[in-house]
């Protein structure tokens, strides 16, 4: 079995297992859907249950199609590539951390300060250097966003509870 084939099959197994888990959770909550007197012959939980079963079946097919799915034991190339891939995936997913921080801080710090920090943080995370250029570009970017969304589109973005407290 070639390296590429074994990776593809292992992926099918992972996707199939994930499908089974999602189907199980979804089916559990489908059973929790309340029955009402207005219910039709199918009911509010009818199609959700059908979807859960369909997903579980697809998951089983994906797993079944990949028997002996693991890469050959002692395949050091495979394991080292998988290791470096895991690092890449973590780094990619880590990009969402500045986004999560933005969601936590925006109400208190306000839109302008938080979007400035977000631009700086994402640029830093993606490989920019911490210097005056980064600060200036982030500030200019935040100002451009503020003008576009708050002044032009009149979107009521949070002014920030911290500033309201300080400048009261």
């Amino acid at each position, binding site marked *: 079995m070639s390296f590429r084939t074994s990776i593809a099959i292992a992926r099918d197994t992972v996707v199939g297992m994930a499908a089974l888990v999602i189907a199980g959770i979804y089916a559990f909550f489908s059973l929790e859907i309340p029955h009402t007197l207005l*219910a039709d012959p199918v009911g509010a939980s009818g199609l959700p249950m059908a979807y859960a079963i369909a997903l579980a079946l*697809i998951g089983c097919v994906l797993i079944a199609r990949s028997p002996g799915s693991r890469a050959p034991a002692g395949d050091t190339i495979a394991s080292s590539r998988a290791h470096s891939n895991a690092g890449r995936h973590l780094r990619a997913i880590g990009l969402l951390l500045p986004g999560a921080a933005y969601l936590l801080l925006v109400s208190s710090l306000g839109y302008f300060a938080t979007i400035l920090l977000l631009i700086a943080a*994402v640029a830093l995370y993606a490989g920019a250097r911490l210097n005056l250029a980064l600060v200036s570009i982030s500030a200019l970017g935040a100002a451009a*966003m503020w003008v576009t969304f708050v002044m032009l589109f009149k*979107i009521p*973005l949070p002014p920030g509870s911290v500033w309201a407290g300080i400048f009261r």
Partner: protein
Amino acid sequence: MHELAIGWHAIVSTWAIPASIIGVIWGIFGGALPGISPSIAMALLLPFTYSLDPVTAVVLLGSVYVGAEYGGSIPAILINTPGTNSAAATTIDGYAMHLRGEGGLALGISLTSGFVGGLFGLLMLVMLTEPLAELALAFTPPAYFALGLLGLSVIASLSGNSLGKGLLSGVLGLMVATIGTDPLSGASRFTFGVPDLIGGVKPILIMVGLFAVSELLVQVVEPQWKKVSGSDMRLRLPDWKLWKRLWKCEAIGCAIGTVEGITPGAGGTIAAFLSYNEAKRWSKYPEEFGHGSPEGVAAPECANNVVTGTALVPLLSLGIPGSNSAAVLLGGLLVHGLVPGPMLFERTPEVAYGLYAGLFVANVVMLLVGFVILSPCIWLVNRPQPYLLAFIFALIVSGVYSIEQSFFQVGIVFATGLLGYGMRRYDVPILPMVLGVVLGFMVESNYRRSLLLSGGDHAVFLSDPVSLGLLVTALAMLMFTLWRERRKAAPSTASPGAR
């Protein structure tokens, strides 16, 4: 003629023309950035369309699509890196022309062939959409259910190498569509007491997450793309002698782009490569292909621009988005409560015909803007990638919040982006999930409504002639795709044994 007047009136009485100009410029910039596909460029603007009138919104999105298809050829020709998937075929001869010192001419051929293709695609869109849509006027709930299934049958052709993963993606989309208040009984489903979920998860959030956020996650670990040398780079149009040589391959691009555009799931990339192949086959100078043939640029560029028009035929006539970009445009329509299909032409003709007129304007604007935008494009492509990613991220966060002033929805977009990243990494196609989300409500509500009317008798789906026709078509499409995939797979399975 009357329809033409409605279209023109719609775009001159709104902000559609300025929106078209902005859309084309945005699209060219987006297309020129490797990794930003037309659908991503469109998805980034989707939240902004909330505050626009429907005509301006759809014209803006359509114009981005037109602009991005040309923009994709700029890095393809200058740095051998296609800005969009459909520009991949252009790299072969476009970059070879650039190395020979004819990069400006290659860009000129790309621009003019794109213009020809764009106008031809628009003509096909106008000619084919309405007759198809009129058929849908006879639709009843069973027929709408069957139409939904027909749309879902497209999943088979969108599934890439694995039908199983495509189906999985589609079912995930259908599951997301069940979140919120049940359409018939009013019961809450999967809302977990969160008020933001009572109205369901908007398709726009899923699209922005799956297309745009997941692309950012992919790009952050990708190496920087190459820098463009902008010195002595001037766009040059083909002269009359060259035009005479190019018309045949442009005709090939038009024909293939029409067929591939109308076929859901085929799209601009396949059209471009097929056209390249056929142009080579019919050329008087096939030996030049691969070494900087002008025909090798004209044919794929013409074909992928034809697709910008023809890909909208199944969307506007039947409500079936056959490509990522069509799905985002559908999102733009749904945002304004507009459902594609015959009712779009009946109830809001200004939107449908306005889109036609807007696409015409977009193609003309593309030709004009194409002359002046090259230098800014080169400047943009040469910006440090970290800053570009940061600004796109900030744009997504701010744009999504502006839809309903909900940070919960921004969180949904992040979560969907994470899911999209996982799906890309495990080769699970994204578009079937979008189809599932978009068609899920239609499938479920009409299925249950039909059974309610028939007293639970499933024969209603076979006794309604339109429903029966659509179900047979769905089955035929499914069988054809499976047969095509099996044929495609046959040589690869045979080859190991042959060695």
